[in-house]
């Protein structure tokens, strides 16, 4: 008999910034998720893992690197159907750029699930959006890997993938073990069942890993292990000396078209002068 498929998903907790997810049916915001949520692309990665689990049978290990509260996203992953949760947490890891992050996560995979078949990451995170951690884990682990995957199917040890990359629709194949990063284009993630969420807080245990557990040199992690340094942050101000228009919509639009008929009419290739009035 073939051994059970072992899947690992790397999920990150991200702040909500200004973008709450919408309920597509009611068109309203899901405010209950406002504090910290699973990064959207990671949720799609988890969904892709769950589909593989339903089809072929698999054990899913969810891994997150973050502070203690990142445990929440592992609970949510349990509720969706993940089997194991690993929280990689250590103050020495703070301030990591993608080089250091990919090292820690790779080491965590090797420690918690050395005989993995497939690692699924999100294609990017909504807070940093570097989209670098996945490809860098591929290098760190020296396994085949494909980014921006929309669809995947398994044929024995052969993984067949589809993606849209720079205007090409590509079908690719690689042998397991490997790594894929998943986009938010295809299979929408399932809802978290409420009952499942309750069980997830009571039934399942989360294992914690520190730097020591990973046997990693602190020099290679966190801010120390990150070659990029931020030297300055600023908010760009692009103040223009602009024209402000107020009042009723109709009045504004007439004024706009009258005063800027050259600009707007010229660009749209149509004459928008008001002939009724000028005649």
């Amino acid at each position: 008999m073939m051994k059970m498929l072992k899947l690992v998903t790397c999920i990150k907790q991200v702040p909500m910034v200004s973008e709450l997810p919408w309920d597509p049916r009611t068109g309203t915001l899901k405010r209950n998720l406002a504090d910290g949520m699973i990064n959207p692309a990671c949720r799609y990665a988890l969904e892709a893992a769950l589909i593989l689990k339903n089809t072929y049978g698999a054990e899913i290990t969810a891994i997150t690197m973050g502070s203690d509260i990142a445990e929440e996203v592992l609970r949510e992953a349990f509720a969706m159907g993940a089997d194991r949760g690993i929280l990689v947490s250590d103050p020495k890891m703070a301030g990591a750029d993608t080089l250091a992050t990919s090292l820690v996560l790779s080491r965590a995979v090797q420690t918690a699930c050395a005989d993995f078949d497939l690692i699924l990451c999100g294609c990017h995170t909504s807070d940093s959006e570097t989209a670098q951690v996945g490809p860098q884990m591929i290098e760190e682990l020296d396994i085949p890997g494909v980014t921006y995957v929309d669809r995947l199917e398994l044929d024995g040890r052969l993984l067949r993938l589809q993606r849209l990359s720079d205007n090409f629709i590509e079908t690719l194949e690689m042998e397991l073990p490997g790594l894929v990063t998943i986009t938010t284009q295809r299979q929408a993630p399932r809802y978290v069942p409420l009952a499942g969420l309750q069980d997830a807080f009571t039934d399942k245990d989360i294992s914690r890993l520190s730097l020591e557990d990973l046997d990693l040199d602190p020099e290679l992690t966190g801010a120390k292990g990150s070659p990029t340094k931020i030297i300055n942050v600023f908010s760009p101000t692009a103040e223009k000396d602009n024209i402000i228009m107020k009042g009723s919509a109709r009045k504004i639009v007439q004024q706009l078209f009258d005063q800027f008929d050259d600009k707007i009419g010229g660009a749209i290739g149509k004459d928008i002068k008001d002939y009724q009035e000028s005649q």
Partner: protein
Amino acid sequence: MKDSIKEIWVFGDYRNYFQNRVTLQLLSRATELAKMLQAKVCAVVFGDQVDEWVNEYIAHGADRVLVIDHPDLKNYKIETYVNLMIRLIGKQRPEIILVGATNFGREFAPRIAKRLKTGLSADCVDLDINDEGLLVQTAPSFGGNILAQIITPECKPQMATVRPGTFQEIPHNYERTGEIVRIPMPADLPKERVHLIFSERSPQRSQRIEEAKVVICGGRGMGSKKKFKKLTELGELMNAEIGATRPVVYANWIEADALIGQAGKHIKPKVLFAFGISGAIQHTAAINNAEFIIAVNKNPNAPMMAMADIAIVADANQVCTAMIKELKVRIRG
């Protein structure tokens, strides 16, 4: 090792029109950086029968082109390309490497950076050289309206990816000459483990919006999917393309390829309408080249209003509806 003149490398992605444009844009910025650094600009081209591109890159500012031309390189192969690049870098030691933030570039550059254990900043909106001769990479950060200036002080090469449309290409000059270095395809490359089985050009993704003279962008302030669709009607009257912000795309009011911004497309219309958009940097980074901006927002203090030529303080839906009505009357025939 060769002489001590520093080099700025640009990865030559030529696969189709728009990827090629980003290569030319990077070459343009690289020539400016090279002046500050007294460095040379070098394009790196892999592929099968790529002379056309080699010449084009010289015409657009490359002092040198490193070429590996071989039938095996006809299709982009990630592992092979990474291995080739690593070997070239090992021999030639460039100071800086710039890669277009195309899908391929965003897969390729992080892997190169990881192998070399150097830094890489993604989606830079500006690149500069500081007093110490380091590459200053300006990139959006912390998920907010903030730009960060990033350096890679201790590692070489310094690496950055840049979205298409961020820099302006310089006009070609086919009189320009440059050194063409042809490198044989190494015979001992590790075997590629990722196999491209099939590839076709995607039919649906049009590039029209990047070229459009008029773009109408809608944001979350449009209120609902139904109201957002009104913009399409307005767009038809104005021969305009419709763009959107990320929350709109996430809410599925419009297809993902309408996304304008750091994570989407860069545009440079003559006239840009921004309806119900707050003006987050991730969005506005991609509209810097719009000539004339008309913003409609209930909030006069939204950053989008500050960067507009005309700031209309009003309800976006009402203005949209009024424009449709008014245009129907005004456009005769």
